[in-house]
């Protein structure tokens, strides 16, 4: 059976390549920081399961220290000039889009077809991880197609990957780190504490107060955690389940759907979310530009969610 570890191994190889080329980049004064940061990330992907929890924790802390205090150097690996790109674009035309399209279509076909394939009773691919495995397979296939089509010099693929990866920089591990923070919060009982706190302050007889607290709490807690998935269990256990469903008899499906979507409004407004950090890096934007473009929509949708939940949740 193909497990998700196969996808991790591919990613580990890419990060290891980036680390190796970083180490040889004499133009980067912080090249050893870059090499250590991406090297440890590669290690996590290649042998993370064998390391054990404590060693993984130490690895995370070293990566954080290197990324946040040492700093990842901004690098400019050699790439093509604008004139060369014009000429190449004219030569290849729309065929340049082919490899990019391979990724989603492989992911789509893989997600639909792979779970059905069995070899002597054993699933070919771990059914729980089909999406991730298909995506990794699609990326590998797209790379193979691009290599055959464009015939770049051998170092081009790792160097171009390094150019993009260094532009994301330390932010690359923030989403995983936030997931880890959520796990520690759960272990330490933060959800219960927040729920207790809210329950103590909330007027017990107001449906509107309960709905507004749940939706606003989802948005605010998501902004703090950078991730609506971490906020949802906390607010649902603290406010949604006991008050909206329990006391007032609201509909759980409506509450859950609109609660999560309220959290997404928070994601659109927080500097903690990778959804805002990664494009800021990849598009070379000043901090806050992406959030400014999103915030008015987020606020209006959040208000809309509160109204929708108040109108719908007690009616169905």
């Amino acid at each position: 059976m193909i497990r998700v570890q196969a996808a991790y191994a591919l990613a580990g190889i890419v990060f290891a390549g980036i680390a190796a080329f970083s180490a040889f980049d004499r133009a980067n004064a912080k090249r050893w920081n870059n090499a250590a940061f991406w090297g440890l990330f590669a290690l996590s992907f290649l042998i993370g399961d064998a390391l054990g929890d404590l060693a993984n924790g130490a690895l995370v802390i070293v990566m954080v220290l290197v990324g946040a205090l040492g700093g990842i150097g901004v690098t400019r690996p050699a790439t093509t000039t604008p004139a060369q790109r014009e000429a190449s674009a004219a030569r290849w035309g729309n065929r340049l889009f082919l490899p990019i399209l391979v990724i989603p279509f492989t992911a789509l076909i893989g997600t639909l077809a792979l779970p059905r394939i069995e070899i002597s009773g054993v699933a070919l691919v771990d059914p729980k991880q089909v999406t991730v495995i298909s995506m990794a397979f699609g990326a590998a296939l797209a790379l193979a197609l691009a290599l055959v089509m464009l015939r770049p010099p051998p170092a081009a693929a790792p160097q171009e990957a390094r150019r993009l990866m260094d532009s994301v920089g330390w932010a690359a591990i923030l989403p995983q780190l936030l997931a880890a923070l959520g796990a520690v919060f759960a272990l330490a009982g933060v959800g219960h504490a927040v729920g207790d706190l809210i329950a103590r302050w909330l007027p017990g007889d107001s449906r509107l107060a309960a709905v507004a607290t749940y939706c606003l709490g989802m948005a605010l807690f998501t902004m703090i955690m950078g991730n609506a998935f971490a906020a949802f269990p906390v607010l649902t256990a603290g406010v949604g389940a006991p008050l909206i469903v329990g006391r007032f008899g609201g509909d759980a499906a409506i509450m859950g759907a609109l609660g999560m979507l309220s959290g997404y409004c928070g994601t659109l407004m927080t500097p903690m979310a990778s959804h805002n950090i990664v494009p800021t890096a990849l598009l070379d934007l000043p901090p806050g530009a992406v959030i400014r473009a999103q915030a008015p929509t987020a606020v209006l949708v959040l208000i809309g969610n509160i109204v929708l939940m108040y109108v719908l949740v007690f009616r169905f």
Partner: protein
Amino acid sequence: MASMMSLLGIAVVLVGLAARFNPLLVVTLAALVTGVAGGLDPIAVVSALGKAFNDARYISVVFLVLPVIGLLERAGLQVRARALVARLASVTVGGLLATYLAARQISAALGLLSLGGHAAMVRPLLSPMAEAADESLHGPPDEARRVLVRANAAAVDNIGAFFGEDIFVALSSVLLIQAVLQQNHIIAAPLRVALWALPTAALAFAIHAARLAMLDRRLGRPAAPPLVQDRRQ
């Protein structure tokens, strides 16, 4: 009282972000403070951090697209994307982004979340297309204008994904909603959860499409005052 102490981690996040410390440091410190204040011993906290980080590696598999995206950029992908839009002279930035928003919402609602993304779509295709649309209508942009157009390209990818994915039954968010409700002894059918994401999806599209129309008006205004402050200097 131990449980209230665990809220210290939230304070660490708030103070750390307000003081503009590096988010990696803030998050790690918040995790350590939360764990220790919540009564766990430091070794157990570091172990929990490591285990969860290891379990969450699937999030970073998206970076596997970077080698092929980089190779294609090197071969002129962004140039080509720009040329494609420049030929359609009447396309506005807002029109282009609203079309992408609709496509992103619909494909996410069908479970095809991997059709978009900042690395695979926005940087190589959507953002150069939007800049080309702006340039062919209004001439060479200044820096503030370029920032505004790019930031809006990133925004539609996020908004389309967020307010589309919850409509698809088998994606992690609907499954998480169901699982959390179950932990609270409440049964909710995934199909109903997905269905009730529709009103917000429609609302989000209406609001953001209207804002994109306003963006077009703003970009079309002659000699506009600085649109976005560039804080890098």
